[in-house]
């Protein structure tokens, strides 16, 4: 039986974007989307369109910065990278996320943990 792909949880997209930029350094929107889907082993149904408003929101919050640059195939593309504040935010959100996962694991009796 084919499992339906999970929708991206509200609020987790930010964390995934921050983590992706932390890993890749500077990257354009397409690259970020690719990376998220690869890293999630294609298990996530990412509506790629929602990525761009999210990028703008993160930029407005001062966690990422954007500059126009040139892609590998010589095209104009907007590159995003993590700011110092973004790095701190990533640490904070990752910590929160681990705590939530931990708590949920305990509550669910670690059924799926094996």
């Amino acid at each position, binding site marked *: 039986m084919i499992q339906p792909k999970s929708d991206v949880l509200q609020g987790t997209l930010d964390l995934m974007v921050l983590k992706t930029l932390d890993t890749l350094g500077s990257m*354009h*929107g397409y690259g970020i989307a690719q990376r998220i889907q690869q890293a999630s082993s294609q298990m996530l149904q990412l509506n790629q369109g929602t990525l761009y408003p999210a990028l703008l929101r993160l930029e407005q919050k001062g966690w990422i910065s954007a500059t126009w640059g040139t892609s590998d195939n010589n*095209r104009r593309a*907007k590159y995003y990278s993590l700011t110092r504040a973004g790095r701190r935010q990533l640490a904070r959100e990752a910590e929160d996320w681990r705590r939530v996962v931990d708590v949920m694991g305990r509550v669910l009796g670690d059924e799926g943990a094996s």
Partner: protein
Amino acid sequence: MSRFREFVSRLTGFARRRGRDRELNGLHDELQFHLDMTEQQLRGEGMSPGAARREARNRLGGVTQVAEAYAEQRTLPRLESLLQDARYGIRMLLRAPGFTIAALTTLALGIGANTAIFSMVNTVLLRPLPYRAPERLVMLGDREPDGRASNIDFTTFSDYRDRAQTFEGMALMRSWQPTLVAGGEAERLPAVRVSWNFFSMLGVSPALGRDFRREEDRPGQWRVVILSDALWRRRFGGDPAVIGRTIRMNDVNFEVVGVMPAGFEPLISGHFYAPAQIWAPVGYDVAERSACRGCQHLKGFGRIRTGVSREQAIADLNAIRGQLKRDYPAAYPPGEVTTVVLGDAIPGPSECRCSCCSAPSAS
């Protein structure tokens, strides 16, 4: 902090609405790049060009929707649409000036009438008159066709006062507009002259100094004044030493004997003239020319005795008036006396407690 930064950024986005198109063009470039890259990748996986393009668009989820969500994140949507609505509203109003004027007039009249009615209700109905037992305070005079009490002359008033058994006391009021000259500045003051017992009959007394005395309510003796709290503060700096000081009005010296409390509202005078800022005694006697039995330029007030009904009081006064008419037939037209209650905390349904007060009403 980041929330604040986001707000500032959105605000900047709102302020720079003209830069929006350029920025959204940037977004379109970005999305186009995304689509092209996806398409390229899908074709690399063996998809036909047409299918790859469709699939790329499918995965992105609609350029227009993304642009809308992006634009919404960019600025303050509510502020933006509010401005748009306002601009639209103003344009429509300007396009139909007749309708606009009618609508504005309707609004203005509605608001105005409401305000007028409320201020009347507030002064006349909601707040009890700040006098002792106001339900027994009446204005007295001949009954006018509309039910009000007419003005009264000094001599007839004196007869009522001396002969009526049903009243605790009676007092007079007349208009007065003295010009106060103090500190090199002349000012015409709304004022009234009252009989010496006016304040004590109402049940109020000065906060500072003293009330008028009987002997001051005589011709040539009435050069004493009581100030309102507002006038005292405005023109005399709220100085308690004002008591006993001489002030000059209409080229005559008056001695300040008292200051009324701040809470004392000259409600009665305010209903007939303007709310008084200064009071002096009437200072008449029956020998005075303006005291004649036809010289009806005074307002007469009385306090009905406890346990006496208004009808009894009116009958009492009518008996006196009948006698006066027999004694001085030429001085009195046919008619009868009425009393109009000045104040009830709760007015009865059949009796407007302040029909004498002629508050400016909407009716």
